[in-house]
């Protein structure tokens, strides 16, 4: 039986995991490979790394840790953050990443999505969408540059567009819910999942096992969380056991 995926997200800066990780027995809580291995053992189905490094030599550092992770972690992983060109995509995949997540670059130059999909296959092109509800409550718009700039573009329309361009997956973050622990924006998840025929990864707002279930009910193929797992407020296995008890097929 095909399973729904539970995905921890790790923020990376200057080649280190930045949010605290409460895994016991880690020699170095900032070491990307060690943290990744711990998540693999904890039952993560995939990993997403968001590189928030701002410095100009970020690219080389990034390729270095991607290579290191690929040598030690044998579950699929996605790398996002600062990807601007098809050459960036090629370099990251060549070091052993399975997918790249493209956000602002896709908004500024949608052709990067179709070019990357043609060259490397849709399965490795994830488009990350940061969406926020419009002030009048009618739908959502997308933001670029890490949620700083409102593009005024409808999120559901944009999801349809990147799907048409050849994206293989959508990583959908609700900026309203992110960090609240009050649950995913299931209306947003449902609106996007209904619109596209590619998998949607719900992100932003998870606080308890029920929230993961709600997102999957709304149409998410995968559910992502960051601080919840990092700070051990919930174990991945707890989330999966709960999902299974509600009749969702998971890898346990």
């Amino acid at each position, binding site marked *: 039986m095909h399973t729904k995926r539970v995905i921890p997200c790790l923020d990376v800066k200057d080649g280190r995991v930045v949010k605290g990780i409460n895994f016991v027995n880690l020699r170095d809580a900032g070491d990307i490979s060690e943290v990744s291995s711990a998540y693999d053992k904890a039952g993560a189905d995939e990993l997403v790394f968001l590189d928030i490094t701002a410095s100009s030599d970020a690219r080389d550092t990034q390729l270095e840790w991607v290579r290191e992770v690929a040598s030690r972690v044998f579950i699929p992983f996605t790398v996002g953050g600062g990807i601007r060109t098809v050459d960036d995509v090629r370099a990251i995949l060549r070091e052993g990443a399975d997918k790249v997540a493209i956000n602002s670059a896709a908004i500024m130059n949608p052709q990067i999505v179709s070019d990357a999909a043609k060259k490397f*296959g849709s399965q490795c092109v994830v488009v990350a969408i940061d969406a926020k509800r419009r002030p009048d409550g009618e739908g959502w718009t997308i933001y670029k540059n890490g949620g700083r700039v409102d593009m005024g573009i409808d999120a559901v329309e944009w999801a349809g567009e990147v799907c048409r361009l050849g994206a293989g997956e959508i990583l959908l973050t609700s900026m309203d819910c992110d960090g609240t622990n009050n649950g995913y924006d299931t209306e947003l998840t449902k609106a996007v999942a209904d619109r596209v025929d590619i998998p949607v990864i719900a992100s932003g707002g998870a606080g308890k096992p029920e929230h993961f279930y709600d997102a999957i009910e709304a149409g998410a193929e995968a559910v992502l969380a960051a601080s919840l797992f990092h700070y051990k407020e919930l174990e991945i296995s707890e989330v999966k056991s709960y999902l299974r008890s509600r009749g969702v097929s998971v890898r346990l």
Partner: protein
Amino acid sequence: MIAIIDYDAGNIKSVEKAIKYIGEDVVLTRDREKILGADGVILPGVGAFGDAMEKLNSYGLSDVLRQVAESKKPFLGICLGQQLLFEESEESPGVKGLGILKGRIVRLPSDKGLKIPHIGWNDLKYPHKGRLFEGVPEGSYVYFVHSYYLEVSDPSIVTATSEYGATIQASVECGNVFATQFHPEKSSDIGLKMLRNFVSVVKAG
């Protein structure tokens, strides 16, 4: 020494890294002598059937791989590498596969309400005993990424299946030729165990 066939297919590095991780010597090569001199051979692959066959042919690798199979040297095809072992694929009509094993590759059914490609973890059933799966319990989950799947001519060589709108022949074993539709190199400890099993076959000579 295990030779991984280097024909510009994506994701080759992951297979190389997994084999290194389990402590086996490995070389990434398209050199005939190195391939024929290796103790075992792995044909990985992500991409389209037709492009891949064109590359294998243009590098003169198709005949080398048939020779590998005939020589009884342990040979493992992964993902597209499994599909290429067979005769033809709906993905690239008119293109001949390696034809080492009998069967054809068909598209996953699109009328079952399931997303294509089939991406993610799925569990295995074992219709026949396979050496890759020694010590790997039935029902184990492995990672798939594919839009096409195998319809084999001789079902007795199928050692693992998985369900996704159809019964996917997820692994075959015929003599010393092994293949998996899923990615053992991305299937966590379970996948590494399968690669170790393949290495054991290689070492047993």
